[in-house]
């Protein structure tokens, strides 16, 4: 039981304590050298190659991107996100926060980049829109979401579960696209990969730190 002296000391120490919560679990995992750490290396190499081609610096991809530090989306994109909730029953409103939409450049395997706009939702999920491709909203904690069309796969993985993604092809080959990790409140990694039209992936597999399968989704792609 706390006496008056205890209370006095507790109050004085509490007044000096820094309340800022700048924790970053993704950074801990990266320092621990999990599979994501190796992913950073892949990304760094891809970024370095891309830098040679286009003369840009991609070094910042070696880190988790701070969501709130990212560039805000333009007005038309915010309005597009607002339209997700327009005219739908409240049960189906994804609860997006369009005013907090941010723009991210995701780097692909060969250093190419695609833009994805991401907004948090009130329930811990997120809404996203890949420029000139597709968009949608995802509930919190979903291990994998993806879209596929015209050879392009875009998607994201829950950072708490997944550390890497594999695209598996009918001929047995596997592609591991780089992942661009975004900090809380999103706490997901975004990826894309363009396959040749002749060979579409048949499965997307999310792996954890230990290389164990977290989830595997089959792609129903016609001939």
């Amino acid at each position, binding site marked *: 039981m706390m006496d008056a*002296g*205890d209370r*006095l*000391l*507790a109050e*004085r*120490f*509490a*007044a*000096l*304590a*820094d*309340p*800022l*919560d*700048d*924790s*970053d*679990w993704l*950074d*801990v*995992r*990266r*320092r*621990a*050298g*999990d599979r994501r750490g190796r992913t950073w290396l892949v990304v760094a190499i891809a970024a370095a190659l891309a830098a040679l081609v286009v003369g840009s610096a991609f070094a910042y991809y070696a880190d988790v991107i701070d969501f709130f530090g990212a560039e805000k989306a333009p007005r038309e994109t915010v309005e597009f996100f607002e339209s997700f909730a327009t005219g739908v029953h409240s049960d189906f409103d994804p609860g997006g926060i369009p005013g907090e939409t941010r723009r991210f450049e995701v780097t692909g395997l060969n250093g190419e980049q695609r833009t994805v706009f991401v907004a948090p939702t009130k329930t811990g999920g997120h809404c996203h829109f890949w420029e000139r491709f597709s968009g949608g909203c995802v509930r919190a904690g979903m291990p994998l979401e993806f879209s596929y069309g015209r050879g392009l796969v875009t998607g994201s993985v829950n950072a*708490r579960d997944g550390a890497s993604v594999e695209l598996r092809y009918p001929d047995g080959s596997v592609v591991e696209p780089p992942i661009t990790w975004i900090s809380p409140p999103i706490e997901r990694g975004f990826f894309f990969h363009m396959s040749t039209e002749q060979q579409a992936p048949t499965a997307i597999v999310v792996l954890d*730190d230990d290389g164990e399968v977290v989830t595997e989704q089959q792609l129903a792609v016609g001939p």
Partner: protein
Amino acid sequence: VSRDDIERVYRERYVGFRNALVTVTGSSDAARDAVQEAFARALRNADQFRGEAPLEAWIFRIALRTALEARQANSEVPLHDALDPTLPEPDRDPQLAAALRELSPRRRLIVFLRYFADLSYSEIAAACEISEGTVAASLAQAKSALLEALERNEVTT
């Protein structure tokens, strides 16, 4: 111990650990770095946790050693001999800072672990490798000394 257990401790204790370590590192950035690195080490070496002490205490010891390594570049120095924790930003409460200076470094550490890291007596005992009874006695004497010094200083100022 599983990664989820370590993540739970991280999410519950991060701020407290960082604030307690600031008293050792003297800098919030260095304290943050020590906490991050300590949890990364805990993840890498999870199989070394024997469950003989609370997980929080095991990780805090790693964090303390990490902070000292960064400060002294000498991991062989016994923890208690190397410690001289001080209140960060003493100007914000000069009377408390002065009162703390009258305590031994080990008592100061115990006080900081109690009030900044919010560790329980058993967690402090495990973190400092002393008995729970010693923690209770040290805290009681430290609190008494602090309150007496604060009263004395407030009377004279």
